[in-house]
C-alpha cells in the first residue's frame, strides 16, 4: 500500500458504462450500500461492496456535492474509491415526477411469483431513493 500523507485527499471516481461521471478529490465520501450508508474517510481499509440505490455525497472543504447512484459496486483501495454504477446523476437532475409515478405504479401493481415480487421491491426501493435524493436537493 502506498504511504500517502495525511493531507492528501481521497480520489473518488464514478463510472457508468456510458461515461466517467466524476473524477474528483474529496475529504470524505458517503455511499449508499445495499443495507445502509457507509462513510469513507482517508486510509479506509480495502473494501469491495455492493451498492444500493441512494445518495453519494462528497465533501471537500466546505463544498458538498450530491449524486444519485443506481446500484452497482464500490471498490476502495489506496485512498481511491471507484464506484461502478449503471446510472449516476447530479442530485438536482433527478426526475422526481417520474420517480413518484414509478413508485405509484409499483405500489399498485399486482404481482404473482417470487421473481415479480423481487422486481417490484426493487422498483419501489429505486423510486423511493430517487424521490429522497431529488427532494433533498431542492
Amino acid at each position: 500500500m502506498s504511504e500517502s500523507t495525511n493531507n492528501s485527499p481521497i480520489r473518488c471516481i464514478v463510472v457508468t458504462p456510458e461515461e466517467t461521471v466524476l473524477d474528483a478529490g474529496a475529504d470524505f465520501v458517503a455511499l449508499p450500500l445495499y443495507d445502509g450508508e457507509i462513510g469513507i474517510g482517508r486510509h479506509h481499509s480495502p473494501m469491495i461492496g455492493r451498492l444500493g440505490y441512494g445518495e453519494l455525497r462528497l465533501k471537500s472543504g466546505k463544498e458538498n456535492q450530491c449524486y444519485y447512484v443506481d446500484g452497482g459496486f464500490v471498490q476502495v483501495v489506496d485512498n481511491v474509491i471507484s464506484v461502478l454504477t449503471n446510472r449516476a446523476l447530479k442530485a438536482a437532475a433527478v426526475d422526481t415526477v417520474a420517480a413518484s409515478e414509478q413508485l405509484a405504479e409499483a405500489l399498485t401493481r399486482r404481482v404473482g411469483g417470487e421473481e415479480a415480487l423481487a422486481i417490484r421491491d426493487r422498483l419501489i426501493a429505486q423510486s423511493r431513493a430517487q424521490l429522497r435524493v431529488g427532494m433533498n436537493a431542492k
Partner: protein
Amino acid sequence: MANPRELDKRRKSVRNIRKITRTMELIATARFKKAMDRAAAATAYTDRITQLVSDLTKTGLQVSHPLLEQRERTDRAVLLVLTANRGLCGGFNGNLLRAALERWQHLRAEVPQCRLEISGKRGISGFKFRGYAPDQSYTHFEDKPTFAEVELIANRYLDEYAVGAIDRLDVVYMKYESVSRQSVSVETLLPLGSIGDSASSADSSTGGPQYDFLPSPESILEEVVPTSFKVKLFKCFLDSAVSEQIARMVAMKGATENAGELIKSLSMQYNRARQGRITSELMDLIGGVEALK
C-alpha cells in the same frame, strides 16, 4: 463526337453527387469521433469490472453462477443480429448479413427452437428478402446506443434465461479492432463462459490488498455476472455503431474520390468535343471561302 452540352450536364450532376458524398463523409467522421469517445468511456467501466472480478477470484472464491454454466441441452436459442439502419456504408451490412445467415442456418439445423432478433432496418430487409421474418426487431439504435436502451433488452434476455425460455444467445456484430480494421464477429453471450480473464489474473499476484467484502464475495459475484453480461452486450452495440461510422466514412471517401476522377475525365471529353466542334466549324468556313474563289 459527343454532344458538349450533354457532357457538361453530366459533369454538373457528378459534381453535385460529389458534394453530397463529401458531406456524408464529414458527417460520418464527426459521428465516428463521438461514437469512439463513448466506446472508450465504456472501456473504463469494463476494465474496472475485470479488475473487480480478478480481486474476487484472488480470495479463492469458486466462480460459479448459473449464467456461466453450459447447459446440457440447448433447446431454445436466440440469434441477435446487429446491423445498420442506413445503407451507403460499403460492405458493412452485406458482410454482417452473410455471416448472420450462415449462423442462422447452422442454429436451425442444431437447435429445435430458434428465434431471430434483428436490430437495424438493413438487416431486417435483408433477411426478409431471403424469406426469414424476425421475431423481434429494433430500429431505434442509431449511432448513439444508450445503456438504458440496451439494458432493457439485456434484462429481458437474463429473465428469459433464468426461467429457461432460452438456453443460448448468439450475437452477430461488427467488432471494432482498430480504426483500419473491423471484422464480423459471432459470439455466444449466454452462457457467458467466463467473466473477464479471471483465470489468467488469478495467479498473477497474491500480494494484493486484503479486501473486506460487504456483504460477501458470493453475493457480489452474483451481482457482477449479470452486470458483466449487460456491459458485454452494450459493448457489442457500441462496437457496431463505431464500425458503421468507419465503414460509411471509408465508403464515402472512395465515392468522393471516384467522383473527382469522373469529373476529370468528363472535363477532358467535354473540352475535346468543344474543340472538335470549333475545328469543324472553321473547316466549314475555310471550305466555303475556298469554294467562293
